[in-house]
């Protein structure tokens, strides 16, 4: 026990590791906040600097970047309506309307506090319930992953508001775009039309920058005549009353974040969307209608996506399976440092587990400090006149797209998706589901084929097993409910009740 505590506090007491955790958290917040820079990209690049470091130093830095980056995406979502990362897509839905009402400071302050709260719940789950959660995740097969990914995309139907068919259209477009390139199972070319460039596939990061960066910049030209939004960031620290009012919701959505984060392949992005959906369904009297600046619309996704970080570490450390893209990169780093993530890691090197838990706790505390400070500097960027700001965001987006592979082709993709995204937005389509479709499409494709092949290509058995396997049946019921809850019949029944 004492030994575990010693490892837990190692990064707190060693000045070098303390500074590395602080630097990682600080960098993570700003990298996450800049549209076009993803946490995955930052961690991938920074890991190459840490190869010669001691593994603990590398893990301290990475813990900070990961937690900071997941949170940082919310800042640009609130201030610019451009999510810094997919996990912040839901945050902008209510965060930006709040900023337009002059409550940006309050929104960022509340977001910071609930992110830290969610982060601690995730870390607690990692420390206490890791074996139990990983046991559950271990029971998931391809069928469950297929349903989970499909559910994730369908959830956006409730986010797309105006039209379910347009929400599903966007999700299907993303999933189809993800099919372009070499089939990961057979190596066969799919939808490449003989092009070598298309064989390499389409980067969802380029698409994300295009849809959220370029399209937003182009759309903002309609509002050039409007004076730059003077974001009110004076009241940053939220009142205890405001925080206490939302603690119940934050606890529930953090639990969603932990469970979803612990499911391999499903990270903070799905957790945030599920949490937002949960809030929409369960909060009867939100501070304002959802989508118009409801605090509940900030609390739910932001507590969930930070709680998902702790959850994502569970399968990574105990099973060697990444919880999301960032943990996939971290697994690579652990291998390079001579460690083998998996069931034996906790038996052979339990100190590493407690060191990670301690570093995450420390990073979470730094998140509170850095999250509540320096916002005015960031907000100043938003106060820059649009004729100056828009070209600058465009250049930053182009650099972000170029940085993916040091290839101008990704800049062309970004541009193409930007123009497409502009028209989609103008004609009432949501672009968030396109990105989710691109991220979840490969998981659905692989899971479907594995599940089908496991039945010997017997459609009858394939379908029957959805109802006879308890886990599948539960997720299927949730999925059907998601669809049914969008129908007029359900809405009429709810309004009567």
């Amino acid at each position, binding site marked *: 026990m004492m030994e575990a505590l010693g490892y837990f506090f190692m990064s707190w007491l060693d000045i070098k590791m303390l500074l590395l955790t602080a630097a990682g958290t600080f960098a993570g917040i700003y990298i996450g906040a800049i549209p076009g820079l993803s946490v995955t990209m930052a961690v991938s690049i920074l890991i190459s600097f840490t190869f010669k470091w001691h593994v603990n130093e590398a893990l301290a830095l990475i813990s900070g970047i990961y937690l900071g980056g997941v949170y940082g995406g919310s800042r640009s979502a609130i201030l610019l309506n451009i999510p810094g990362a997919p996990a912040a897509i839901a945050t902008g839905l209510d965060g930006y309307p709040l900023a337009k009402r002059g409550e940006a400071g309050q929104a960022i302050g509340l977001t910071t506090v609930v992110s830290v709260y969610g982060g601690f719940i995730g870390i607690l789950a990692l420390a206490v319930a890791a074996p139990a959660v990983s046991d559950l995740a271990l029971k998931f097969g391809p069928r469950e992953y297929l349903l989970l990914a499909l559910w994730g995309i369908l959830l956006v139907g409730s986010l797309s508001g105006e039209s379910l068919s347009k929400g599903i259209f966007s999700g299907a477009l993303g999933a189809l775009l993800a*099919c372009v390139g070499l089939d990961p199972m057979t190596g*066969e070319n799919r939808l490449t039309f003989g092009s070598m460039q298309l064989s390499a596939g389409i980067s969802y990061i380029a698409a994300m920058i295009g849809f959220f960066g*370029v399209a937003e910049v182009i759309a903002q030209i309609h509002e050039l005549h409007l004076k730059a939004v003077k974001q009110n960031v004076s009241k940053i620290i939220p009142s205890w009353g405001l925080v206490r009012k939302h603690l119940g919701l934050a606890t529930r959505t953090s639990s969603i974040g932990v469970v979803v984060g612990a499911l391999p392949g499903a990270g903070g992005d799905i957790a945030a969307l599920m949490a937002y959906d949960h809030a929409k369904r369960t909060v009867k009297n939100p501070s304002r209608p959802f989508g118009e600046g409801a605090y509940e619309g900030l609390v739910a996704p932001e507590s969930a996506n930070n709680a998902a970080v702790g959850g994502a570490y569970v399968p990574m450390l105990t099973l060697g399976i990444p919880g999301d893209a960032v943990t996939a990169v971290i697994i690579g780093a652990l291998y390079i440092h001579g460690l083998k993530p998996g069931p034996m890691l906790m038996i052979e090197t339990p100190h590493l587990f407690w060191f990670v838990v301690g570093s995450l706790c420390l990073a979470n505390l730094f998140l509170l400090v850095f999250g509540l400070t320096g916002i005015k500097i960031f907000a100043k960027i938003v106060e820059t006149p649009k004729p100056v700001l828009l070209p600058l965001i465009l250049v930053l987006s182009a650099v972000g797209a170029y940085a993916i592979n040091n290839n101008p082709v990704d*800049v062309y993709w970004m*541009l193409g998706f*930007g123009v497409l995204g502009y028209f989609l937005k103008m004609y*009432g389509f949501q672009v968030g589901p396109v990105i989710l479709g691109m991220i979840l499409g490969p998981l*659905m494709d692989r899971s479907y084929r594995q599940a089908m092949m496991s039945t010997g290509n017997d459609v009858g058995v394939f379908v029957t097993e959805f109802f006879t396997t308890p886990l599948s049946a539960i997720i299927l019921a949730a999925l059907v409910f998601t669809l049914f809850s969008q129908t007029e019949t359900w809405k009429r029944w709810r309004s009567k009740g």
Partner: protein
Amino acid sequence: MHTSHARLPGELTFMILSVAISTFMLWASYNISQFESISSPGVFPMVCAATLLVTGLMSLKKTATAKLNLEGETFWQQFARKLAPAQLVLFTVLIVVYALTLELVGFLVGSYVFLLLSMQVLGSKRIGLNVLVSAVVLAAIFVVFQTAFSVVLPAGSLVGPYLPEMLK
């Protein structure tokens, strides 16, 4: 953005194009492995394309029944006002030229020219401020990406040979 049930100019054409492309993608997906097997590489793309087609048709139906209110303008006048004002078109053209010439003229020169021209197009009249802000921001991006993130930004095949080593 689109908030009411009234149709925006070009929306019907956009939806017809979407349905046409969805049909083409369904055909292209079918051609990957036809109906070879229920778990073949073409099945998932076919399901996606079919979903795209069905939901596209549903949206097309809604769009076709919605009314286009021209508010006393011609179609093209309203299209230009609501979707493609001159500033937007010019700015988009500048972005396209910037992207296409990035490798040729390099990041620094290309971005600087793009920033100055686009700020002008978008109506920022304070030329001194534009020149200064563009230079400072570009220098910051260049330093952060080249040093901290090791992203080698294009020096430009035309301009690069004449640039000092530290700016490449």
